[in-house]
């Protein structure tokens, strides 16, 4: 029954099933075992690991921190990315050059740039405090205080990913129809009103897509944190991925970290679905 249509789909489908689905099923099985450094292998201990997850304060705190971090950083990325896209949308001098320039950060490797950012935020030898000093601001404890470290991660995330928003939103702006703008011009609408009544509604579908994609990616934040702060000081910047990584591949509590990662996955899927529905209702006014 293999016809030519299967020739197209099957290779990719089977590859993905083999590489993703089996590991996932395996993780589910492992999450019911006590696999760790002392005892490797698949025994069965029921839902014990899951009970432990629900009592694990450090995990829930990391989840709260992650939500705060991704919501703030994605909102900033969206606002800045939209503003930048609007600014270079119409003819600007050097527009071509600026567009290329604005895209570059998203092409760079997050961990590699984080290594550079770490030197930038160095308290006595880095330029961040040096430049602030020129304006008379005292030395900021960027990476050694809880708030400072959180803000540092935020700055790096915004630097890295605003370009992605910029890319999607500018591509959207470029392909907008012209007629609504003519109508708005005939009505004598000013720049501000044209934006809110024409551009913003027309951009709603792209806005939703862009926000969701970025939230999905932001929910995985770990690279930047690992290099910049190692989750510290203390656990001040520890995200869920990073915490699960510590439990799983550093403490080697395989069974427990499998349970953690599945709980994390389910929470991600549920909350992103809810956010997507809310955004759809808010921006397009229909229930998706």
């Amino acid at each position: 029954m293999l016809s030519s249509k299967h020739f197209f789909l099957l290779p990719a489908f089977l590859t993905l099933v083999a590489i993703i689905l089996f590991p996932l099923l395996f993780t589910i099985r492992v999450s019911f075992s006590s696999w760790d450094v002392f005892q490797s292998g698949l025994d069965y201990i029921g839902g014990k690991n899951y009970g432990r997850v629900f009592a694990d304060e450090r995990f829930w705190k990391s989840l709260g921190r992650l939500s705060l971090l991704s919501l703030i950083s994605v909102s900033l990325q969206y606002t800045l990315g939209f503003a930048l896209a609007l600014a270079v949308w119409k003819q600007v001098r050097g527009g071509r050059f600026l567009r290329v320039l604005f895209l570059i950060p998203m092409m760079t490797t997050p961990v590699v740039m984080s290594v550079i950012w770490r030197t930038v935020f160095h308290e006595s030898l880095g330029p961040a405090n040096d430049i602030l000093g020129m304006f008379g601001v005292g030395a900021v404890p960027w990476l050694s205080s809880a708030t400072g470290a959180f803000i540092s991660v935020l700055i790096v995330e915004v630097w890295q990913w605003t370009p992605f928003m910029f890319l999607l939103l500018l591509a959207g702006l470029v392909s907008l129809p012209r007629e609504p703008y003519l109508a708005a011009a005939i009505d004598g609408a000013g720049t501000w009103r044209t934006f809110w009544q024409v551009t913003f509604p027309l951009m709603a579908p792209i806005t939703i897509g862009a926000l969701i994609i970025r939230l999905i990616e932001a929910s995985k934040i770990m690279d930047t944190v690992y290099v910049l702060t190692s989750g510290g000081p203390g656990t001040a910047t520890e995200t869920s991925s990073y915490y699960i990584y510590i439990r799983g591949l550093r403490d080697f509590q395989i069974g427990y970290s499998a349970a953690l990662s599945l709980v994390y996955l389910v929470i991600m899927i549920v909350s992103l679905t809810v956010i997507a529905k809310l955004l759809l209702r808010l921006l397009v006014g229909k229930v998706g």
Partner: protein
Amino acid sequence: MNKFYHILKTLFLFGWSLFVVFPFLWALTTSFKDANAITSGATYIPWVDYEPSTQGWTSLFTTGSQGINIVGPFIDSAAVTLIASLVSLALGTLAAYGLSRFEYRLGFVKNADITFFFISQRIMPPIVLAIPFFLMLKELGALDTIFGLVLVYVALLLPIAVWVMTDFFAGIPKELDEMAMTDGCSPIGAFFRVILPNSVPGLVVAGMFCLIFGWNDFFFAFTLTFTETQLLPVSIVSLNSSVTPWWSLSAFALISVAPLACVAVIVERYMSRGTMSGAIR
């Protein structure tokens, strides 16, 4: 009012440009410093603020205990990224074409569900897969090898390829296939002789995204390779945690981000032509 807007806009664009280039300029100037120049605090302009030295750059190409070898990791990174991107692009393009032209049915599972299955893999946090991947590659004896990483990266990149190409094929009229088939092509022949040659813009966009995500991944390379295979992001992080001087780190960083920074030029070209807009929904 208009003038006020204009000034505000210019200031904003100028400020943001400065923010974007700042880490690169800082890395560039740091890469030419020596120990004295680093420990005397943040300085910016060579010859004026400090006496430049090229040891940051030369150390990367020196082998042995004094040097940091960037060539090996660079080749490993390029090999893994290119192979994985090509495989994902090939498999993804075929699947996307199939999904856009034929009807598949597996019980209650239909085309839309299969497409969703592919794309939804992007939601999977790497950490969820890291442990089973680790154990799986260990079984296969593929830990710490290029082959093992390629396998994992294909899983990572395939969804991106399927996603971009499904949208792209949706924009190619079906009449084109039908014309080819009335000319005597089989469906497979029609795809290779007619559709594929017309899909270059889509392939470029999808390929670029694969390259970006492949080249920039750190987590899987970090958890699945150790010494034999070492990719750029992993080696810079291990340098970072040892006592590697800033000048070498900076030069290393600049070399590893340079190839993709050039890709930005191509992305801009496609974006302004509007090729990208379809790939967004």
